[in-house]
């Protein structure tokens, strides 16, 4: 039995410790805001925070998390829209299909925590998540907006 602290709540799951955190979040705990895109930490659709740092949950074994505090898109803000990054995303109408956006938002939130006023180069370096609809320019603009607000 493994106990995970996710969005402030403890969850106990009976699962092989090698199971990637992504699948435990999605399939064992039923939280589907965190997405499956590649399974090899290439695309970032599965990004979550562990102790405030952004991690690609498809490539983190659930057994390695220990007492780490996990935050998923569902836990970023109480109402799903009031985190500064979510507000900026709404203001810029960022999402197209939206599938990668949970991961993009989690990556942007972690970037702004670390670097409150990121330059374009900081954004290029930190925001390596893939978006096939091509929302990159609006993501960049929204991060600058969120930085101005923070």
């Amino acid at each position: 039995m493994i106990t995970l602290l996710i969005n402030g709540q403890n969850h106990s799951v009976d699962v092989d410790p090698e199971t990637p955190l992504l699948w435990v979040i999605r399939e064992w705990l039923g939280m589907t805001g965190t997405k499956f895109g590649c399974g090899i930490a290439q695309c970032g659709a599965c990004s979550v925070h562990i102790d405030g740092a952004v991690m690609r949950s498809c490539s983190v074994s659930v057994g390695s998390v220990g007492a780490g505090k996990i935050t998923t898109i569902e836990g970023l803000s109480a109402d799903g829209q009031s985190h500064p990054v979510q507000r900026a995303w709404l203001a810029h109408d960022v999402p197209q299909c939206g599938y990668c956006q949970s991961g993009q938002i989690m990556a942007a939130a972690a970037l702004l925590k670390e670097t409150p006023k990121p330059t374009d180069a900081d954004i290029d370096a930190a925001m390596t998540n893939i978006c096939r609809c091509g929302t990159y320019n609006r993501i960049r603009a929204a991060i600058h907006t969120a930085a101005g607000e923070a």
Partner: protein
Amino acid sequence: MQLDRRQFTAAALAGAFSLGWRFPAQAQAPGAPATGAEIGIWAVVHPDDSIVVRIARSEMGQGTSTGLAQLVADEMDADWKFVRLEFVAPHDNLARKRAWGDMSTGGSRGLRGSVDYVRKGGAVARAMLVQAAAVRWGVPAADCGASASVITHTPSGRTLRYGEVAAAAAKLPVPAEVTLKTPAQWTIIGKSVKRLDTLPKVSGKLQYALDVTMPGMLNAAIAQSPVFGGKLVSFDGKAIAGMSGVRHVLAIGDNAVAVVADKFYQAKTALAKLPVVWDERGNGNVDSAAIAMFVAEGLSAAQAGTGLKQGDAARAIAGATRKIESVYGTPFLAHATMEPMNCTALYTGDAVEVWAATQNGEGTLAAASEAAGVPLAKVKVHKTTLGGGFGRRGNQDSTRYAVLLAKQIPGVPVKLIWTREEDTQHDFYRPITQCRLTAGLDAAGNLTGFHMRISGQSIMAFASPATLENGVDPRMFQSANAEEFGYHAIPDLLIEHAMRNTHVPVGPWRGVNTNQNAVYIECFIDELAHAAGKDPVAFRRPLLAKNPKNLAVLEAVAAKAGWGTKLPPGVFRGIAQNHGYGSYVACVAEVSVSAKGELKIHRMVAGTNPGHAVNPQLIDAQIDGSFVYGLSALLYSEITIAKGRVTEGNFDTYQVARMADMPKVETVVVPTGDFWGGVGEPTIAVAAPAVLNAIFAATGRRIRHLPLKDQDLRPA
């Protein structure tokens, strides 16, 4: 009249193929109360004034649902703040004799293919609401007006809200004839309103097909024959029988096998260890080099289909002062939607229900009916928002496989998911083509003859051979046919296609053939301009003389980009134009290339004339997005074949553009207001040729084969 499956499929496919692809929208009714009154068929008005606009097309990020709602709401004189969306279910469309029309969503037809009847639907609803108010007041409807969801009796100044008369309006006869607004009367069409579907994408609450869950559901992973055309011979289910969560190991059809488990993670882990024997059916030795030679042979073959002929190109080129010739090529490409292919199905003996991300809900319904062996009326299709489409989700393979699997475990819902590798290796790829272009210049540098020979694979020959026209696939000539080719002022023209089909499955890929054709045409025109010693814009002007809309958008981007003005040291421009999917587009790219050959794209200025611009900010988003898709293809992406199968697997080997690759994109939307053009696809075509022409300006190197990765770009 009850359509049978064959008729229904034919209807769904006819719609689809005339549109470019066959595909649908999503079944997410955003929480409207069940007390609404259906006014006509496109709008449901609730007592609290909220208006649910029905959307038959698929939403895959392109914003079609918001644009369609604008069309309905404007004619309805609705207050935009009350408008919500609801997606029509394919089985409801079937039950109501296709009242909502074609559901397939492709070919950039979402708006322009439905504009007349959805606007009429809004106008009908307005007329019925006004009539209901007039009846209540006992006054002539002609004395009443409507604005922002409020009806006013003009002589008395009395008002009623739409919500107050909706129930009465719903009982009135639907008027046969209504007058649509003139563009000058539009208040919502043409406005940059925000999308109606953003919040659940930001909160993480939107349920995609991959997120579908229900009690008792099992999850499955699929392995299809690695070699295209191969068959399943055998598998050893006992080898994985004891693995965690595994319930079943089942063949699907004659070319795939699936592991069904409690969780997908368990299914895919077990599948990776499943011993499987495949019959390669003779394709196991095909590789990219052999395919390239096969396609190259078509460049000079005697036989070819004609797409456009004007005058005598061969004679003009033979008699020219100078003859210029080049060969270009573009590879197979996968779609790589962010949401991997998947479908959930529940088979119950005499009925089947599916949950699918599909660009053609009716095609999904027909595919489910056929795979399950149940009548159309016994199928339900629940459409979700698509996690990317780009043409991939017009194919019904995921539905077919999920239903064939579900049929083996009746009463149990099963979600079948492709891994990323499976998704990349079992796509319907953008077809491979090469192109030989030959032209003649006279002594003054004027272009006198132009011959374009495309060779390569046909989508229609693969997907719908019965629709070939005398053996010719007209879609090979998109942007190079009589209607769309821009350079009709060239006196002698010949554009042909030699069909060379491989064993690799192909299908529509955002911008079907316009991408490849625009690279061939626009880069070669740039070559000719340089050969003639002329500026690329000045060279194009007389050639576009008979196509003034092409020229106008070219001039618009040139002006916005400052064509001909000084650039920072080391930065160079390239330009391209195109006409496709009903819209006229152009692009100027500004790039620099370092001494080591590193490319930096600084700025792209894109222009489009889509006729009517329903929502300019969504057009901006589509241009941005189409450029990312187009630049991925230009910079990195390539599907190669070895031993009959796809070499690339995940995003580490099938690379796509990321944030750091993106230039600043500026858009110029110049609608002329006299037609309805597409938005999702047209601009992708000019992204690559504009950058390639700028690379030539910067380096003197003509790159004629994509992608750019691993090519030497050092200044020559």
